[in-house]
Structures are given as structure tokens and as C-alpha cells.
């Protein structure tokens, strides 16, 4: 199994793992982490496409790699915006949750 | 027949890897966060130094050897300072 195929399968696994975490975790920051895991899996798939596109004297195809570099920086910008939104929600409301019923129920209670 | 330089590289990198493994064993087996920090910092810095020593005979441009030593120095600095900062928090919080 060539490194490209192995890396591609790892990318597919990462997308699956990230999807699981994205759907299940109630805390928004954990969702953001899982979303970043999905993003890195997708970048890996781009990377193997780049490696397989070795031609014309280069050992890789530079266009997908340039796209991945762009993607990593844009993913960081999106994560920063998401973090700012989460922290803004916390400073406005005192707690961080995406549960739509949480704002109609009474505040955090003791116990558990 | 392996040349003497290759043998030296092999020995140095092998010793460096051994120190890394020793540091990881310390991380997993020591009871206290502070002792784990100590084991990890010391062993990893020494291991990296040995690995860099083993890589120096294999560079093609001699300036790259200087870069390797600079990398080791930077990791030493930041690793040591970070360990100090973590240790300070651990000592205060006793976590």
C-alpha cells in the first residue's frame, strides 16, 4: 500500500471520527475541535491527490498543495471567529450551550 | 561495509531514541505531575541533542549543521521555559 493510499484512508477515517464528535458533543468548543479534525482529514485527501499528480518532472502536483495551504489558513480564521462567537455568547449569557431549550428552563441547578 | 561516520550516526540516533523512550516511560509511570515533567524535559532535551549529533555527519550543506544545532538550542530554551511555567502552576495548584 503506497503512502498516498494509506494517507487517504487515514483522511477518510479522520472525517468519520470528526463527524461523530461534531454531532454528539454538546459543548460548542468540542464541536469546533471535531470540525477541525474533519477539515484536516479533507486536507489529507487533497494531499494524496497532490502526491498522485506527480508529473512533468515534479514529484507532486503543486496546485492542490497550494489549495491546502490556503485552506489551513482559512480554517484557522474560521476557528478564530467561532471561538470569538462562543466567548461572546458566554459573556452575554453566562453559559455556553447550543441546546434551544436551555434558555427557557431555569438556570443551572445543583446536583449531578 | 558501513563506514565509520554512518556507524557513529546510527549509535548517536539510537542513543537519542533510547532517551526519548526513557522519557516517555517516565511520563507514563511516575506518580506525580512534577516528577513526570522533570523526566520528560531532561530526557527529551538530551535525546534531541544526541539525535542532532547523529544527524550532523549526514548533512549535505555544512550550513545545515548549524541550523540543526540552532534548532536544538531553540527547543532547549522553549522546552525548559515551558517546563518552568508548567511547574510553577503545578506547585501552586498541586494538581
Amino acid at each position: 500500500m503506497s503512502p498516498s493510499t494509506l494517507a487517504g484512508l487515514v483522511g477518510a477515517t479522520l472525517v468519520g471520527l470528526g463527524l461523530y464528535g461534531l454531532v454528539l458533543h454538546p459543548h460548542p468548543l468540542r464541536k469546533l475541535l471535531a470540525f477541525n479534525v474533519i477539515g484536516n482529514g479533507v486536507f489529507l485527501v487533497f494531499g494524496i491527490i497532490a502526491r498522485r499528480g506527480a508529473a512533468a518532472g515534479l514529484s507532486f502536483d503543486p496546485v492542490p498543495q497550494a489549495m491546502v495551504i490556503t485552506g489551513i489558513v482559512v480554517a484557522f480564521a474560521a476557528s478564530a471567529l467561532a471561538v470569538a462567537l462562543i466567548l461572546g455568547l458566554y459573556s452575554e449569557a453566562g453559559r455556553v450551550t447550543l441546546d434551544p431549550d436551555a434558555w427557557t428552563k431555569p438556570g443551572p441547578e445543583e446536583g449531578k | 561495509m558501513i563506514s565509520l561516520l554512518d556507524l557513529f550516526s546510527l549509535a548517536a540516533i539510537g542513543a537519542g531514541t533510547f532517551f526519548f523512550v526513557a522519557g516517555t516511560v517516565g511520563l507514563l509511570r511516575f506518580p506525580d505531575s512534577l516528577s513526570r515533567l522533570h523526566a520528560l524535559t531532561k530526557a527529551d532535551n538530551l535525546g534531541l541533542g544526541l539525535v542532532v549529533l547523529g544527524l550532523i555527519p549526514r548533512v549535505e550543506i555544512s550550513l545545515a549543521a548549524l541550523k540543526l544545532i540552532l534548532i536544538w538550542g531553540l527547543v532547549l530554551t522553549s522546552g525548559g521555559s515551558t517546563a518552568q511555567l508548567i511547574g510553577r502552576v503545578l506547585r501552586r495548584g498541586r494538581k
Partner: protein
Amino acid sequence: MNILPFLDILLASLIVTVAASTVVARDLFAAVVSYVAYGLLLAFVWIRLYAPDVALTEAAVGSGVTGVLLITAGKRLAAIRKAEPEAQPGPALKWLTGALAVLVACALAAAILMLPDVPPSLAPEAVTAASGPGAGLGNPITAVLISYRSFDTMLEKVVLILAVVGVWSIGKDAAWGNAPAPLGRSRPSPAMVFLAQILAPIGTLIGIHIFWVGADAPGGAFQGGALLAAMWMVAMMARFDEPPRIDAKWLRLGLVAGPAVFLVVGLAGISMAGNFFAYPPGFAKPIIIFIEAFMVLSIAVALPLLVAGPPSEGYET
């Protein structure tokens, strides 16, 4: 006997394990630390895939600066670690999501295994565009970023600015124009001060070096800019410098300098080289380095602003 396949498999299983630990860890801090380690391991995979520029970017931006962002966020949210119990999803939802995740992963894996044997590639066009009179650079990725796909890169810088403006808008209206909360403690420990004093000058030099050699060797504007951004953040954490007021003219100028210079050069290409974003032949490399220098400035200004967050009325540390 070749040991590389075993190392590949070892690296792959390590990455999957650390990613799983990121997703299923109980504690937010453990998850963030796992994510940083996972990013660094990914840099190894990029090296194996013959992508040193991507490895540099992943280590610097993907795991480094994102790690700082997440740990700062976790620290500011630290009070709620003991807060109300989250509504944990029931077992039915867990099974369903697990099945969905496995389905998506298998579909992607099948697509990867069924990729065409003769892979299509844009390498020939990129090489002709890069080595021709359009760019004349030794690093094909920099040539692709600044010459072959220059419009994409310029728009990406605009996306960074939009993210900064978005982060600034989250602050209260009354706080607009103030500075964000400081990144470091009010009395930084001597180890932090020592680290900043040693690391910041050397790191700045290395960042400029990485940008400079990016024209002909692995490196480039993004990697160098990320390093400069990290050095400014280290200096701010040691309280050598404070996050600037967001209405400071030099800040806003530095932020838009990158895409503005890019756009001006692209428009000038209409008159000088006959086409939007075309560079005059023979003069391309100095123009590219000129554009990249301003891009490094913009990135080095934008990334710490994204980490510092929205402007605040008073200091909360």
C-alpha cells in the same frame, strides 16, 4: 528490507488514535492538547507526501496558532468547567451517529481506492506557468500561490481581514475602538520573560528567513508570517507589548496592506503586462517578493488579532 512501510503504518495508527482521543476525551483541555499533538503528527504525514510547505504551514498555523487560540479560549471559559451538566445524547443517537460516521468514512475510502490509475494533474501547466516568464521561481508552490492562482491568494487575505472584522464586531458597541484584553498575566513569571527575550528576536529572524527562501525552497509568505505572528504573541504574553487599540491607524494599514498591494499590482498588470494579474516577463520575481513582503506583514498583524479577540471595556485578567 525496507522499514518505511512499517513506519507509515505506525504513523497512521498513531494519528488515528490521537484524533480519536481528541474526539472522545472527557476534558476540554485534554482534547485541545490532543489536537495540538495531532497537528504535529500530521506535519510528519505531509513530509511523507512530499509537501514540505504544507508541513510547515500545518505545524505553524494548523496546530501552533490554532492551539494558542483554543487554549486561550479554554482559559477564558475555565469557570464553566464545573458548571451545569450538559445534556448527554442518548444511546440511540450515539449508535445512529456512529453508523453515519462509518458510512461517510467508508464512502470516502471507497472513492480514494477507486481513484483513476492515471491521475489527472495540473503539474504541467503549473510548471510552465512557474518556470516561464510569468514567475521564474524555484519553488513551484510559491509560483502557484502568487502567480498561477494569484487571485485565490489575494481573496484569501481578504477572508482573513473579514474574520478580523467579524471578531471585532463581537465586542460590545461601547467598547469599539478599545484594545482587546491583554494576552498575558499582569505579572508575568520570569521564565516567560526570559523565553520572550530569547525567542522573539531569533524567531523574527527565522520568520523573515523562511519568507525569503520561500521563493526557491520550501517556505513562503504564510509560514514566515505565522512565525512572526507567533513571536508578537510571545512578546504580548510576556507583557512586553499590549494588544493595540483596534482603531489605531498603523494597525488597520498593516492589516489591509497585503491584499491592497496585491490588488494594485494585479490592476497594474493590465497596463504593464497586458492582463489582469499578469506580471511583466523578466521582472516577475522582484514583483512577487514585493507582494509577498506585504502579505507577510498582513498575516503577522492579522493572526495575533484573531487570537486576541474582540475589544474589551476593562481588563478581565
